[in-house]
């Protein structure tokens, strides 16, 4: 199976404060992991594409260390402004005429939480697609996707070539071992510098950031469990008036 996984480097959002640490987007890590599971079972290769600055090359090496074959770094400069529309257009340009069976992405990026790029890319490439996959399986001629829908799980068979966006509920991405890290250093990474004028294809822009709406300070209830239970009931009924 020939896979192409589109990956992104994002800030580590699991820390409460921004530490400056950058990581492979968790949803993309799941996409890489699942591609590895399927190619280990059925044979094949995994190409990576990353859109991002020079400093994102360490994330490319991480995904190569997990076991991907090669990578294309679409290297952006600091003054380039992107949104999902611009990124998907750039990716589509480089994927036109591709011969992949499956193009996989994470379902959203952990910094923007936009969740648009995968489906936009599928539309631009004219590919059948499924999003929010929690399971992938290969049958002759089809990728069987289990996705998390509104009422439950939906099982969809997609013909090749297709595109799928992945939930991090799908798997636990492997942590590269030393051998993989060493091998990654020698895996081919092509770099193409992207013209900042590409910002012109963006249709949205971020004007600024604001804090989340604040909450009134809360209180801890004291005492034995029975006392806490009684106090809580009183608070909920009389003070908060929510029951």
């Amino acid at each position: 199976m020939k896979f192409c996984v589109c990956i992104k480097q994002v800030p580590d959002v699991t820390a409460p404060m921004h530490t400056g640490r950058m990581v492979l987007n968790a949803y993309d890590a799941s996409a890489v992991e699942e591609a590895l599971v399927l190619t280990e079972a059925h044979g094949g290769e995994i190409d990576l594409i990353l859109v991002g600055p020079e400093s994102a090359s360490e994330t490319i090496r991480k995904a190569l260390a997990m076991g991907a074959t090669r990578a294309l770094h679409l290297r952006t400069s600091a003054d380039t402004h992107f949104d999902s529309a611009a990124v998907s257009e750039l990716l589509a340009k480089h994927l036109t005429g591709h011969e992949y069976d499956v193009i996989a992405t994470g379902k959203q990026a952990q910094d923007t939480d936009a969740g648009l790029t995968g489906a936009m890319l599928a539309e631009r490439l004219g590919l059948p697609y499924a999003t929010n996959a929690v399971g992938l399986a290969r049958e002759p001629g089809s990728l069987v996707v289990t996705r998390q829908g509104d009422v439950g799980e939906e099982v969809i068979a997609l013909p090749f070539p297709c595109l799928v966006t992945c939930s991090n509920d799908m798997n636990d991405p492997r942590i590269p071992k030393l051998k993989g890290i060493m091998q990654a250093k020698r895996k081919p990474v092509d770099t193409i510098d992207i013209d900042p004028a590409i910002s012109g294809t963006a249709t949205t822009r971020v004007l600024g950031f604001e804090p989340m709406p604040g909450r009134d300070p809360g209180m801890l209830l004291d005492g034995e469990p029975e006392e806490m239970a009684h106090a809580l009931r009183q608070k909920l009924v009389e003070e908060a008036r929510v029951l």
Partner: protein
Amino acid sequence: MGTILTYIAIQDGKVKRSSLEVLSRCHALAKACGHRLEAVVIHPEAASYVEEVRNYGPDHIYTISSPIFRRHLNTPLIGALASVIKYAEPQLLAFASTESVKDVLGALGVRVGAAVLPDVASFDLVDGGADALRPVMAAKMMARTQASGTCVLVSVRSGSYEAIPAPGEATVEEFPYDFDAGTLRQTLRDVVSATGGAVDLSEARIVVAAGRGVKDDKAKGLVEELASLLGAAIGASRAVVETGQFPATSQIGQTGKVVSPDLYIGVGISGAIQHVAGMSNSRIIVAINKDPDAPIFNLATYGLVGDLYKILPPLIAELKQTV
């Protein structure tokens, strides 16, 4: 005069309240800007939902009733919405942000050449497009985002607005959309429904959420008893969904459902950032956890530090007297 269009989602035989929240917001915007308000219902029995939609003030309602829409499929939904957009030429098409909408939003934006503002907490029409505030970085902050263009697609997090009835005289039109199922490249093999008519988590007024502290059937039973007593929907953290104790449809968080209940009770929930991203908009937050350092206590309106096995039984007994 321009047009604002609202997509009305149907689930488990009901109009989703989150769609009515969005319709109410669009009603207010239409009134403020002097625009026409339209709504679109896409379902084999779309006509049966028209009366309810009418109560929220659209000027016009499109119904699309092809049987292909019995189950969610992205291809025909994108096609149907693109056709309505081409016909109605709205400045704005607004959706409640559900999994089905997330499945089509980006592709639809490209299909019709519209800018997209996904999963917003608030939105407004502005000159040249639309403006929104949307949570980013696992809902640690809000990004003020602007979309430019003659048509903007917006999806709205549930609970961001109130559904406010505004009864009116909407005209209704069955919009012709024929989808040749033979052109469908994907095959929907199965839908394993996990909701079965239970309280829709993303629309619930009261939520009881189970976290890592809910380790066994006894604890799960206590959670279920509490929820049943309060008429609450049951939510879960990723940890207990992964163990299989709770279904994936009950997962609350950055990846999962967004809830905005009047009352959220977290049982054994630590308050990890990714979970909080899905419930921080709850009006009253109660946290029960034996770890006094659990981050949830920074967020809770009422915090109870203690063992859930010791706290839940007397709490259930107390609440039985109330409800």
